[in-house]
C-alpha cells in the first residue's frame, strides 16, 4: 500500500481534469487544518456517514435540480438526513454530475449503511448513528450557505446523536 499512489484523474477525462486543476489553482492554501483526536477506541465509537450524492428519503423534500438547471452556477445548499435502515427503495438520488443509477440500485456504493451495520454487529465499531447525511457536492459559485448554515446544522445533529467519528465520501 505504501508504494501505491492514486491517480486522481484516472476516471475523469481531459475536460473534467482541466476544470478540477483550475479549481485547485484557485484555492488559497489553508492556513490551518482542523484536527480532532478520537477519544474512544473504534469498538466503542459511534460512526456517521456523509455523502455528497444528493440523497433524500422519499418522505423528505428532494434536492433541487430544476434550480441548478435554471442557474448553472448554483447548487442546492440544503442537507438531508438518511435513516440508518434506509434501502435503495426508500430514497431519491438527485445529482446532475454523475450517473445516479448505481446509487439508486444499491445505496451502499455511496452510503454504506449495510456494511456499517455489519461492522457494528461484529463489534468492530461501537454503533452506527441513527441517521446519516447527504449534501449536494456541486455548489457552483457560492458555497457559503453550505459552509455557514448547513455545516453547523449537521454538526448539531451529529452532536445530538452522540456521533464520535464521521466518514465523508464525495461522489
Amino acid at each position, binding site marked *: 500500500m505504501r508504494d501505491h499512489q492514486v491517480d486522481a484523474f484516472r476516471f475523469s477525462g481531459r475536460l473534467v481534469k482541466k476544470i478540477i486543476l483550475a479549481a485547485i489553482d484557485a484555492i488559497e492554501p*489553508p492556513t490551518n487544518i*482542523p484536527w*480532532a483526536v478520537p477519544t474512544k477506541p473504534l469498538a466503542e465509537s459511534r460512526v456517521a456517514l456523509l455523502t455528497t450524492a444528493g440523497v433524500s428519503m422519499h418522505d423528505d423534500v428532494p434536492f433541487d435540480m430544476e434550480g441548478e438547471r435554471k442557474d448553472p452556477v448554483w447548487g442546492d445548499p440544503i442537507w438531508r438526513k438518511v435513516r440508518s435502515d434506509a434501502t435503495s427503495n426508500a430514497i431519491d438520488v438527485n*445529482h446532475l*454530475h454523475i*450517473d445516479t443509477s448505481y446509487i439508486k440500485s444499491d445505496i451502499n456504493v455511496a452510503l454504506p449503511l449495510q456494511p456499517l451495520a455489519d461492522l457494528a454487529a461484529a463489534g468492530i465499531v461501537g454503533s452506527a448513528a441513527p441517521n446519516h447525511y447527504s*449534501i449536494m457536492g456541486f455548489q457552483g459559485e457560492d458555497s457559503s450557505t453550505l459552509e455557514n448554515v448547513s455545516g453547523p446544522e449537521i454538526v448539531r445533529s451529529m452532536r445530538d446523536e452522540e456521533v464520535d467519528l464521521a466518514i465523508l465520501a464525495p461522489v
Partner: protein
Amino acid sequence: MGLVARRIEEAGIPTVTINLIWEFQRALGMPRVAALEHPFGRPYGEVDDRNTQSAVLRAALELFVSAQQPGQVEHLDFVWHEEPKRTRWHPPEPAPIIRYMKEQGKI
C-alpha cells in the same frame, strides 16, 4: 464538501474523507484523506459488491487510528474492475455547468 468536513472536525468530531480527487481534497485542507481509484458515483465499490464496500469502509476507519498529523493522505490500493474507458460514470446529459462553460467559451 471539504468545507463541511472542516466544520465537523472543528467541532471536535474526527473525520476521514474518502476520495478519488485527493489532490483537490488536500488543497482544501482536509484533516484525513483516504485516496482511492474508484470512479465518480461509486466511491465504496460496485453495486452489490458488499465485500469491497466493507473493505473500503474498514480502510477508512483504520485511518482514525493510524493518522498522526493533520492533512494526512493515505493511498489505498483498491483496483477498480474495469478500465477507465469502459467505466460509465457520466450523467445522461451534460451537467448544466459544462453546458454553461462551453457557451461562455471557457472550455
